[in-house]
């Protein structure tokens, strides 16, 4: 008894250490995905790479918590983040683990293409794993299309004609939203990349201006669609932070299309619509019929902290995360387009999108949220919101956007 009492703290410490080693925490700001992270972690536990999801409901609280702990030993072992300029800041602080060796192992085995790592590469080193790569496509209501006698468009002219036919039947063609702020950038980047993807790329890195004629044309097209009634009111809830009014309208057949990242299938599923039967997916065509197809992608990274106390375990989990076994479960649980070449998914809409991607081989363009500096696009979405709520502010909005860009780029030269 005495022996047991004396050895109890030691046993408890050992037990807790073992438990801590098995339950590595993966920080994320995605409450809807958290259970699925833990499910993948449970699968990993069978091979000593277990982890559980720890979620934050508010992205800004999440960012503050992660950023302030990164330089300390309390840094989260693994965490989700945003690629591009949002990640650059962390890389430059020297707090992220170089994951190039893990990538090389899986690339050598042919499981991952070389393009994918680009979004996470800084100065030749890869600092993240793919949490997911979302492609931004159009989800369409099959019944609304059938009733209007239309098919998914392959050209811009057909798209415009479809919009007019839907409008004539009292169905709104597309959803747009300023709710939760960030969705305001969706149509700006979509119109611009379909009109002139090179201009978009130049604009993102400060080599073109928001007041250039090409950008003005984008705002004119956008305003034209609003004037023709092809868009929902900008106050329609997108479902990312507040109400999901847009998905409801889509399910009711009052809205024919929603353009969103492929993760939006989970929001549509919440309305009871069946993928494949009730709705399908297509890639928004380019304005120039002869141009190469274009699609916006959003690469979400999974990062390992350099200073985390349990970094060794995190690297083990990172290796497991890249495996076909982990990715098969993750992609199917989330209905994500697979990133590992050996993975297939069951969701028919995801399959349809994967097939469209491999068939049309579109030019992949990074989403504006990651492709341009945070200091421009964060206040920039407020300017775009202003335009969506009152299109007469177009000139002022363009000037303000350029002012934000000038303020940022002038400090970089």
């Amino acid at each position: 008894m005495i022996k047991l009492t004396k050895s109890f703290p030691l046993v408890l410490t050992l037990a807790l250490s073992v438990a801590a080693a098995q339950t590595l925490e993966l920080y994320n700001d995605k409450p809807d995905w958290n259970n699925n992270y833990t499910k993948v972690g449970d699968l990993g536990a069978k091979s000593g790479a277990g982890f559980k999801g720890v979620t934050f409901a508010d992205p800004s609280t999440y960012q503050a918590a992660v950023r302030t702990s990164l330089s300390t030993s309390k840094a989260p072992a693994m965490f989700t983040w945003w690629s591009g300029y949002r990640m650059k800041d962390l890389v430059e602080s020297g707090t992220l683990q170089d994951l190039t060796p893990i990538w090389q192992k899986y690339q050598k085995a042919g499981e991952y293409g070389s393009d994918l790592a680009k979004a996470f590469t800084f100065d030749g080193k890869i600092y993240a794993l793919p949490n997911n790569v979302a492609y931004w496509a159009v989800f369409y209501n099959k019944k609304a299309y059938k009733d209007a006698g239309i098919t998914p468009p392959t050209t811009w002219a057909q798209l415009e004609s479809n919009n007019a036919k839907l409008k004539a039947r009292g169905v709104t063609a597309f959803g747009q939203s300023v709710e939760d702020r960030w969705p305001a950038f969706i149509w700006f980047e979509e119109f611009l990349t379909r009109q002139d993807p090179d201009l978009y790329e130049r604009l993102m890195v400060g080599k073109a201006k928001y007041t250039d004629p090409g950008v003005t044309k984008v705002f004119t097209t956008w305003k034209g669609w609003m004037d023709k009634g092809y868009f929902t009111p900008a106050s329609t809830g997108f479902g990312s932070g507040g109400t999901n009014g847009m998905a409801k309208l889509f399910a009711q057949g009052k809205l024919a299309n929603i353009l969103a990242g492929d993760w939006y299938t989970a929001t549509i599923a919440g309305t009871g619509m069946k993928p494949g039967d009730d709705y399908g997916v297509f890639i928004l065509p380019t304005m120039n019929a002869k141009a190469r197809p274009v699609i916006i992608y959003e690469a979400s990274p999974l990062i390992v902290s350099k200073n985390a106390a349990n970094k060794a375990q995190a690297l083990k989990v990172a290796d497991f995360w890249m495996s076909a076994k982990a990715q098969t479960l993750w992609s199917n649980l989330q209905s994500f387009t697979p990133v590992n070449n050996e993975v297939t998914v069951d969701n028919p809409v995801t399959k349809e999108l994967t097939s469209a991607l491999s068939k049309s081989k579109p030019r992949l363009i990074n989403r504006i949220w990651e492709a341009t500096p945070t200091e421009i696009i964060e206040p920039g979405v407020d300017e775009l919101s202003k335009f969506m709520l009152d299109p007469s502010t177009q000139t002022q909005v363009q000037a303000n956007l350029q002012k934000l860009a000038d303020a940022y780029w002038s400090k970089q030269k």
Partner: protein
Amino acid sequence: MTVTQQGRTPARRASARRSTAASLAPYLFVLPAVFFVAVFLLAPMLYTFWQSFTDADGLRTPNLVGLRNYAELLTSSNFTLSLRNTLIWVVASVVLPVGLAFALALALERVVGGNFFRTALYLPSTLAAAAAGVLFSFIFDPTSGVLNAALGALGFSSLSQTEWLFRSPLNTWSMIATYTWQSVGANLMIFLIGLQSLPREPLEAAKIDGASGLKFPRLITLPLMTPYVTIAALMAAVNGFKVFDLIWVMTQGGPARSSETLAVTMYREGFILFHQGVSAAIAVVISLIALAFSYFYLRNVMDKESHV
């Protein structure tokens, strides 16, 4: 003599010890409170003040930048808009929840079933501001919200498409209405307690002297209730300066930053853009305004009271 001296010395020492212990005792009692105030209030305040002169970003070691953050604020149009919205909130937070609560307290003293109404009006105060924000976001939703549906059903079809949270300044007023709904109950309780504790004699004397109608509350009840009104108004004003959660949940200060207050701007700068130096500068400005307001308000009220 020696014996006496020896006898007195320990007694004196004991008395001195008791007296020292007695004089130290109050300090020991307040020490825990002082410790917590110093660690959790004064230290963060001083740190924030220092941070307002740096380029802190939460990742790197901050550098001193002098008054640059304050200069940036003064030249920013968004700061001016935030300040204007904050002032609207402060004024409205005092006038509506306090004024309405006072009127309701007077009315509830006289109505049958006052207890039921008191409970009903107090219930929203038990909700967190964030919960009230979520609730009213659904109510104000332009496509599926209860408010627009009710307006449509009542025949106000022109109002049934109103974008309550998407048009400025309507969005600020909609949120103030939510805030009023939520905070009127707490003020109501303060006033009901105040009314019950008023001395009966002056009230009855006034009635005998013929004070009636609006004259009675204006000339008799209100002056007697001044201490309660002072506290309720001061608390409401300070809360108006600090309001954040409700706005963050309902509009995040948008659209296009149109409903931002200083507290929201502070949060955006600090936790979204990670301009923590600028954010600290805004925190200092909010604190100074609230402090100055409280000082002048209380001095003014105290002066008036001393004249009475």
